[in-house]
Structures are given as C-alpha cells and as structure tokens.
C-alpha cells in the first residue's frame, strides 16, 4: 500500500516519538550509571552530559571492588558510607543458572507438547490449548501464598540446600513460561506444512526421526525465539524469586537490596540494572526476525 507523503511523514514522526518515549528512561538509566554522585544529585540543575564519567558503579557491582577502598584511593577519605554488600557477582551467577536452567526445561517440554498439538489429533486437543491459554489469565501473586507453603513443605524454601533453591526457581519459571512457549512453538510448527512430515514418512523416517531430523531443525529460529522469551522472563522475574527462596538471590532481588535504610544507592542500582538489560537486548536482536513472525503471523491462526 502506497501512502501519500504527508501520511508517511506523520507516520515516521509518530514512530520516532514512540520509540523515544520508550527509550528515554533506559538511556537515562544507563547515563545515571556512569555519573559521579555529584552529577546525579546536583540540586541546581539537571545534568545531561557535562560530567566526568566513572565506572565505579560497575566496578563495585560487577567486579566486587570495595567502595570504601575506592573512595580512599580517590582521596575522598572515609566520608563514604559502605558495606561490601554491593558485590553482585553471586547474584548474576544465580540468575544465569536459574534462567538457563528454567529455559532449558521449558523448551524441552514445550517443543514436544507443541509438536503433538500441531501434528496429532487427540481427544481434548482444543480444550488443552484453551487451558494452556487460561494459565496466563492468573497473576502470579494470586498463587503466591499457597506456593510459598508448598515450597516450604517440600523443602525447597528455607533450607540451606542451594541445589533445592535452584531447582525450585527453575520449576516455577518453567511452569510460568510453559503456556506461552507451547503456544509460540505450536504456531511455528503449524507453519511447517504437514506434507513435509509425510514426505519424510514416505522417505522412510519414523515419527521420531521426522521430528528430530526434519521438523525441529526447520523451526530452529522459532525455538531460539521462544527460548529468548523464556530466558528474559526468568531473568527479570522478581516476585516469585523474592518469596520462594531464601538461599539464592537473583539479580532483580539483589538490586532491590540496594534500597537501604540509609538511602538508595542509585549508582549501583542503575549500573546493575543497565548491565542486566544487556543480555536480553543482545538476545532479542538475534532472534527479532523470528519473534515478530511467531508473535503475529502464527498467533492469528486458531
């Protein structure tokens, strides 16, 4: 559809405006992470770019440097309050384990389930799809209290067993992600014509060989896109992580501890926040093409 010039200009302006609206807080956040405290808290004006950038916040949160030591080195004396509780390496490690683990579990189940839903006719198939969707209607907070009780009873909360902590979070994230992953994967499988399965069958492939050697490789992009969505959910999830485990602290929970009784450590908060956004950003860029396809084209069917 060819649009007239004024319409195109208007559309472009709107696009730029909307993008700017969404991007500005993120950019401001990233900017804050490299500002010295004096620039962040200037009481006379808003500081945009006229400050001497510093990586102190990253050094403390990502590399575990001691802030009091850094302050002394910088000749500031002992005036800076500081515990060593801002080292977030352990939180990042925990987050990576939980996010990758839960994504793996989710995708393993989702790929099989979605293939079955896409290819096999069985009783209750339609109902199953609706049930899967229904899972999304329920906000996590509605099931939080029973979940806490359950986790406590089965020994996945308030134990010193780190492994149980990991497994507990991975399981709940897999549970939360499974419906959307199944739906997404089903739409990718639906895009592969059934003739391809049949051709493989005639070529002599068993159902399993067809699945593993033909159909799944053909939806690789879809698998990657769905996995990224699951990863990002697990990576950014706060509520369940806060309540369901005491042994491990994922990055979002860790960041929240930077809000202290003596003040908010904006520098560390923004540094860790910015750093945490980077993996999601890269992954999304990598699978963007498939993601758009999966979320629009596929979801229009059925």
């Amino acid at each position, binding site marked *: 559809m060819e649009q007239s010039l004024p319409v195109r200009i208007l559309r472009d302006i709107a696009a730029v405006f909307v993008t700017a609206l969404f991007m500005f807080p993120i950019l401001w956040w990233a900017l804050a992470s490299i500002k010295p405290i004096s620039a962040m808290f200037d009481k006379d004006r808003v500081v945009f770019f006229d400050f001497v950038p510093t990586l102190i916040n990253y050094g403390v949160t990502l590399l575990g440097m001691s802030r009091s030591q850094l302050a002394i080195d910088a000749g500031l004396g002992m005036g800076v309050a500081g515990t060593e509780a801002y080292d977030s390496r352990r939180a990042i490690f925990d987050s990576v384990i939980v996010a990758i683990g839960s994504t793996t579990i989710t995708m393993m189940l989702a790929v099989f389930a979605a293939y079955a839903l896409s290819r096999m006719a069985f009783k209750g198939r339609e109902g199953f799809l609706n049930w899967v969707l229904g899972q999304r209607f329920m906000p996590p907070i509605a099931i939080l209290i029973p979940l806490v009780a359950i986790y406590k009873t089965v020994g996945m909360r308030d134990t010193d067993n780190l492994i149980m902590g990991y497994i507990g979070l991975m399981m709940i994230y897999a549970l939360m992600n499974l419906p959307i992953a199944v739906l997404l994967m089903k739409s990718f499988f639906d895009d592969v*014509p059934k*003739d*391809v399965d*049949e*051709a*493989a*069958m*005639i*070529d*002599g*492939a068993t159902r399993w*060989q067809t699945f593993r050697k*033909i159909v799944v*490789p*053909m939806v*690789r992009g879809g698998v990657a896109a769905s996995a990224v969505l699951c990863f990002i959910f697990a990576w950014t999830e706060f509520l369940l992580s806060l309540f369901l485990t005491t042994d491990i602290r994922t990055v979002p929970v860790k960041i929240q501890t930077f809000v202290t009784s003596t003040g908010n450590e904006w520098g560390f908060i923004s540094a860790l926040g910015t750093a945490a956004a980077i993996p999601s950003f890269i992954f999304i860029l990598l699978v963007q093409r498939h993601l758009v396809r999966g979320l629009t084209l596929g979801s229009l069917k059925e």
Partner: protein
Amino acid sequence: MASVTIKNVKKNYGNLEVVHGINLKIEDGAFVVLLGPSGCGKSTLLRMIAGLESVTGGDIEIEGKRVNDVHPKDRNIAMVFQNYALYAHMKVRDNMSFSLLLAKRPQNEIDEKVKWAAKILNLEPYLDRYPRELSGGQRQRVAMGRAIVRNPAVFLFDEPLSNLDAKLRVQMRTEIKELHERLKTTTVYVTHDQIEAMTMADKIVILRDGYIEQEGSPLDVYDHPANLFVAEFIGSPSMNLLKGEVITEGVRLAEGTVLALPKSHKAKLGQKVVYGIRPEHLKPGKGTAAKINVIEPTGPEMHIYADMGGQEVCSITSERVHLARGADLQLAPQLDRVHLFDAETGKVIA
C-alpha cells in the same frame, strides 16, 4: 515397476463418505492421470495409495500384494507434493539422499544415485544449494529427484505443477513425460487441468464426487465421452451442449432452429436430448442459422461465439471471418462427430 489395483475402495471422514467404491487397474509402467474438479477425491485416492490416508473399505494392491495396512515407507512408492515439501534446512544433495541414508545404503551408492538423479534432472550445479536458493521449477525438480533416487515401484504426483507459472508448467510437463519415457515407472498423477491430463496420460481417469465417471486413453475420452460431465470437462473451449428434442429432420433447439443428425442414430423420435458438438466440428457453412455474439481471433483460429435458438454455441474455424456482432451466419456440424446425450440421465445415447 509394478501394477496397482484398486478394488472397491471407499473412504469416510467421520460419517461422510467421500470416495464411493472405486475400482481401477493401473498397469505396470503406465502413466495414469486422475482428473477431476476440486473436491472430487483425487488427492484422497492418491493418498490412500501412498498410505498417508487409511482405507475405509476395499483393497489396494501394489505388485499384487495387499497394502492396506502397510506403512508408506514399505510400499515402495515415492510421492511428489504440490508444494514440493522439501526439507528447507537441507541442501539439495541431502534432500535427495535422505531416504537412502535412512535405508542405510553405503555412501558410494548414495553418491552415485544422487549424481545420476541430478544429471537426469539437470540439477548438477545446484547440489550444494538450499531449496530457498532455487526457483520454483528447480525446486520441483528436486522433489522429483528425491523421488527417483529410491527407484520406487510407483510414482505418485499430487498436482505437482500447479504452483508454477504457465510457461514453466508446459516445460515441466514435457520433462515429467520424458522422465517417464525413460524410467518407465508406473505413475499416478493427480491434476484438475485437463490439458495436462490430455498431454501426459496413457490413461485418464475422470472422477466426480468420489465416483469414476469414465476412464480411457486421452483421445478415447475426448472422442467418446460417456456422459455430459465428461463431455463438458474435457476440451477447451468445451463442447457445445445444446438442449433439444429429436424430430425427423434432426434435433430441434427452438421453433425453426434444427441441427442435423447423422443418418443412423439411436435416439427415439420425440426424445429430449442434449446435442453435443465440439467447436472445431461446427463450422460456418450451409447449416443452422445463428447470430454472432463475439469473435475472438487467437491467431491460427477464430473462435466464433454465436446465439443459436437461444443457446450459445462456439465454433472454431481456421478461415478468417469478418463479421460484426449481430450478423447472421449459418453453422454446419460435422455429422460423424455429433454426440447425443439423454437429457434426463446425461448418458450418451449409443
């Protein structure tokens, strides 16, 4: 190579019967085309032969062996699909060798077979490309290559050319025909394009609503259609079918408009009939009066559409006709080419 025998085969989807007891014998090495309008059950029949669809009733035999419950891969057939159904993530070479690999054939045999198929199909320069890097016609050839490397007993084609443009379709038509001449593999080919059927088939089977209407060689069904459906379906422009009543002088279409009949015919006086005459057998000349509607020159021929006793007829002539709309002319049927059908049953009167 093998013959295929279809005995009283039925197919139900739930309570709906879509194929109603079909009997068909496909000779060893024959090229049989299943022809019919959309929804007539061609694909269903083909897929039952392939084993992709269960058979509700009757028997299918390949090489004299009942295969109703045999898995597709054990039927020794190969199928080419309308949308090619290539494995998009595999190179052309791997697409073609997949079945041999699964059958655990030795590598040198696989290489040899793939090379042989690629040579026949002119695919040699493309072996290391992905299907998405090929044109429609090349993809079609890969699908055929995938079928021939296995040296199957029967080839099954389901409208393999309908995704190609007109020119390529004609070219591929010839290629498939040549491939068949060369390999002499029994072939069942599904299409709704009667030209494809006419040009390629040894035997045409015309289906409608899950029944066989007629089977025979292309010229046989063209020259001797068994009923009105076949008469209308085969041939383009299609046969003129004019409703009328048999009188002594011929068939009366309307008051004063009478088409001549051959000396001996089987119709009874006063019988309501449909008078069938192909456009190329109805030429300007001393005959029945008509009024011109349109004249379409095609180059070698003129297609004259005219009104004859209130019904439209088409006449094809190689003479140059220069007449205006509304002009009067006379059209004469070639009497030994007249087909008479019973108006009630639609069957040919013979």
